[in-house]
């Protein structure tokens, strides 16, 4: 039986799709069978970031409405056999997707895959409810901005009512110099306010944008800091205690973070 993890944030544009693509890729690189689901119906993106857009024949709404079997809609990644994608519909009406239909799809996928990573749409409406419906766990993405943290807090509050364990946190798009100058909320403060476990921090890096433009998640690049950060998150998802490695150590600001990691074994 696999595990379904939803990637959510409340606020739009903070990196849910990027995170989904990269965590999925990193887990697949570690030879876990992974299925990514794009639930952002009408604004599908994940296929583009993954470079799989041209292969879409059926989408999630086709599955829900019975126009095809679930297997037929899954797109196998061309780069490695461990990764599949269930794309969102770009045109069909959102009403098709419901809490029950999502649960059914995810239950079926869990038979075959180790991890199902669900890319959630922005907002707290029905799209959010559908995306979290079948998930066992959640990862909340925020950037070090007040408004983003505020929305993350709202989402964490909404997730409290679901039958899942407390979500874990990724702080994305960290800019070293701004944090040092106090122009951004610092990691300590964000973790203190949200009071959930931190599972990773990701720097802001132009390479991320370049990579997604090329349809190549940055986690595939061996040596950039961001790529290592995503692979570390994947290892933490697998339950490893990942020691702070050079990228997080060499900068003074990351010292503080130490205490948030490594608490869980």
């Amino acid at each position: 039986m696999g595990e379904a993890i939803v990637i959510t944030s409340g606020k739009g544009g903070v990196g849910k799709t990027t995170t989904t693509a990269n965590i999925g890729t990193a887990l697949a690189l570690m030879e876990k069978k992974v299925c990514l689901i794009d639930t952002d119906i009408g604004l599908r993106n994940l296929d583009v970031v993954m470079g799989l857009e041209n292969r879409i024949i059926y989408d999630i709404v086709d599955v829900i409405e019975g126009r095809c079997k679930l297997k037929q809609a899954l797109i196998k990644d061309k780069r490695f056999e461990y990764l599949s994608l269930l794309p969102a519909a770009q045109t069909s009406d959102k009403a098709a997707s419901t809490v029950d239909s999502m649960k059914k799809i995810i239950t079926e996928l869990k038979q075959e895959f180790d991890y199902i990573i669900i890319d959630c749409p922005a907002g707290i409406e029905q799209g959010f409810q559908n995306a979290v419906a079948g998930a066992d766990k959640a990862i909340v993405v925020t950037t070090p901005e007040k408004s983003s943290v505020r929305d993350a807090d709202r989402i964490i509050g909404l997730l409290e009512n679901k039958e899942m364990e407390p979500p874990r946190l990724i702080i994305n798009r960290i800019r070293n110099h701004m944090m040092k100058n106090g122009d951004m909320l610092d990691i300590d403060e964000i973790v203190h306010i949200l009071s959930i476990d931190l599972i990773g921090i990701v720097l802001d890096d132009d390479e991320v944008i370049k990579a997604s433009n090329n349809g190549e998640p940055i986690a595939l690049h061996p040596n950039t800091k961001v790529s290592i950060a995503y692979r570390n998150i994947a290892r933490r998802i697998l339950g490893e205690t990942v020691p702070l490695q050079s990228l997080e150590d060499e900068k003074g600001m990351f010292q503080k973070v130490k205490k948030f990691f490594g608490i869980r074994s």
Partner: protein
Amino acid sequence: MQENKQMITIKGTRDGLTLFIDDSCSFEEAFIELNEKLTENLSKKDEPTVYVTVKLGNRYLTTDQAEKLRGLIGRGNRFSVQSFESNVIPKDKALSWMEDSEVKPINRIIRSGQVLEVTGDLLLIGDVNPGGKVVSTGNIYIMGSMRGIAHAGVNGDRNAVIAASYMKPSQLRIADYISRAPDYESDGVYMECGLIDEEQDKIIIDRLQVLSHKRKDLNGFERRMNNG
């Protein structure tokens, strides 16, 4: 003997008159005697109204009876009832006072968009995050960071206070008073409380220590027992 016992006694004080009504006779008897006493003393005109405090001992007055007495004493505009003072209150009222002043301990984080409402005093073990809100009819004590909105004494209790381990609220409200954080970024304060300052006619934030002399009856129940 019975006949001679005074059911009504009147005493003059600095602030007006105090009227004692014996609590062993029936309401009707007392009413009749009071009527006679007042009629004897009527007549003189053009004197200022005298305020009367009515002491009832162990007698409980229904609202109806209170209205009757008020009407009788106020007749002719010579006297006016300032207050009724009784040693007793009905059970349901006592229970509602108690509920109003019970401390409700709750341990969770009040996150953005969440509202926690309690009757009585709130003891929150956890934070109120920005965008979160806590409301109580009594005092609010927060063992954690207060970064959102707190509204104490929501039914109008201006003596209510809001205390927190760390205070950086976006708004504090007490009864009908509101104060908000300054528009510029400011630092929070530790171990402080918000309360209404009568002289300044606004909510002030002060050290927790001031509560020991500014709010002697922190417990709403005692406050009510003493002040009615």
